[in-house]
């Protein structure tokens, strides 16, 4: 178990290191001069002395006159102080602050969508496997759902439930007429605005998990241990239970592999519903050429994905006794 964790943590640290390096490197080695581009384009010029402040910030954060290796160390230093620069789009709010304001919406949207779709998809998939009627209806549906681009499903849901039926609102995280407060009305409004983005994420992911589980179960039911159990006269449900426990492991690994795709899906879903998480922020940052904010979003996404990966590793140890006994269920 120690070796399993040690290896994982090494990979995560290397990944984080590489990600920060990319974040540092790209603005410096891209063709053109993004720094000048940004300063000539931003709307901070109306603010007296703002450009000077920005230049000072650059001098401080990038240390542009220093040799490259010192700039690099500078970057790490400011990173550890939580300093990601000032947003030009929401000038003069620090990027860290802007991002921290957006993160709760992402957590609130993504965690229920990921967990519920994974659980529901796995159970449905296992249920559908080897039952002719269900298999013929759920499998095609699952394939269509996983092939659907997240934003398109979001657009369809918004159009149908938001515009045609008018049941759900299609923009923002709460009613524009309200200010955030702790009342039932506000919580109700939050949930109402949350439902459609959640539903579109849930449905696309659900399709993928259901198909994956169906295929895994069929594979496990063909395995020798299942045939042996059947030959011993074990009840059908018991055999399926064992198959399910074995099939859940690759699905857990699959969840870790899918995180990147899920994050991408969440970003575009937020754009469709103007849901004020990181994805929505990112679109605004791109349209306003706010490079500090883009870089900050990048780092936040990486950190989020690394944390989620780590959580899945722990879950793996809980689910698979072999890893606990040092038998290395899954290498790397």
């Amino acid at each position, binding site marked *: 178990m120690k070796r399993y964790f040690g290896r994982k943590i090494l*990979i*995560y640290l*290397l*990944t984080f290191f*590489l*990600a920060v390096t*990319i*974040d540092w490197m*790209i*603005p410096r080695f*891209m*063709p*053109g001069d*993004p720094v000048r*581009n940004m300063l000539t384009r931003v709307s901070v010029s109306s603010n007296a002395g703002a450009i000077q402040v920005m230049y000072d910030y650059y001098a401080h954060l990038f240390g542009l006159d220093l040799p490259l290796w010192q700039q690099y160390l500078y970057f790490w230093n400011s990173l550890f102080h939580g300093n990601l620069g000032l947003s030009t789009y929401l000038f003069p709010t620090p990027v860290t602050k802007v991002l921290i304001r957006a993160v709760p919406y992402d957590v609130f949207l993504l965690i229920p969508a990921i967990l519920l779709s994974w659980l529901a998809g796995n159970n449905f998939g296992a249920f559908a496997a080897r039952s002719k009627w269900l298999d013929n209806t759920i499998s095609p549906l699952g*394939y*269509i759902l*996983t*092939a*659907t*681009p*997240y*934003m*398109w*499903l979001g*657009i*369809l849901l*918004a*159009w149908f439930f*938001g*515009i045609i039926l008018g049941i759900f609102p*299609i923009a923002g995280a709460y009613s524009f007429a309200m200010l955030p407060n702790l009342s039932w009305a506000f919580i109700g409004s939050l949930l109402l605005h949350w439902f459609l983005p959640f539903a579109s994420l849930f449905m696309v992911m659900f399709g993928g998990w259901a198909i994956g589980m169906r295929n895994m179960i069929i594979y496990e039911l*063909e395995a020798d241990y299942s045939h042996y159990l059947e030959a011993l006269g074990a009840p059908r449900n018991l055999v399926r239970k064992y198959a399910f426990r074995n099939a859940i492991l690759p699905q857990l690994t699959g969840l870790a*592999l899918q*995180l*990147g*795709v899920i*994050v*991408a*899906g969440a*970003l*575009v879903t937020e*754009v*469709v519903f103007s849901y004020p998480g990181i*994805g929505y922020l*990112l*679109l605004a940052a*791109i*349209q306003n050429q706010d*490079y500090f904010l*883009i*870089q900050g*979003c*990048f780092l936040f*996404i*990486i950190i989020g*994905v*690394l944390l989620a*990966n780590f959580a899945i590793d722990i879950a793996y140890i809980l689910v698979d006794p072999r890893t606990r006994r040092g038998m290395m269920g899954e290498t*790397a």
Partner: protein
Amino acid sequence: MKNKKKKNEFLFFALRNKKLLVGLSIIILFLLMALFGPMLAHNKPFAYVNPNGAQPPSSEYWFGTTFFGQDVFSQFVNGLRATFLVGIIGGGLGTLLGILIGFTAGYRGGIVDEILNVLTNIVLVIPTLAVLLIIAAYLQVRSVITECLFIGFTAWPWAARAIRAQTFSLRTREFVDLARLSGMKPGKIIFTEIAPNMMSYLVMTFILQFGGAILIAATLDFIGLGPTNAVSLGLMMQYAVLWGALQFGTWWWFIPPGLAITAIVGALYTMNVGLDEVFNPKLREM
């Protein structure tokens, strides 16, 4: 002789596999639209041709016009072209890199394998889109080919991992040992002894990479980081959302691009299942 018979056998099952045929027909249908559609469209994708703004499909504008009076059909078929280009080049590059890295790591083993494995795992953990968007955001001018390259260079890890595992298990078989004893060079062993034995697997990897590249491209285009000089299906959807196609109910603007992507990727997945049944006798007649 024996080989020829085997090929015929695959063809026999392939022609009788409904999933494969249905998937393939859908792909061919869209491919034809992508190839010949732009010749039928008499307007430029971004030209403001209809002074009346948004209008539903008519005999003049087959797919209707956008809020700005642009021809949706022209945007659609040109976007479809970009979609196939991204799928073929981006997915092809991803597959190629996956094959190269997977074969090298799996066949060499040892320290080379360790290093490539760590590299694969790192690229696997980093969300592809996050890297793509930070690169794309800093590039002022982007073409469809740039997008293909971005996608290809970040999409290979899972393919490399899967191919490495397959190579690893084939490496210790007798026929590979025999080839090695007879003094064959590693490159030749990989391409004449190992690769043919996992050809079906490589084909399926390409199909999945193809579909994945299309979905990633749609996402990038949708957040405005796609090609700067061309129309794409993702870009159509972005404009539709940003310019209130939902509120005005101009469904002909946002339905076709998403439907095409769903149909193409869904058809690819279906084809993959069909191919799996063709190549793997255990799965036949299910």
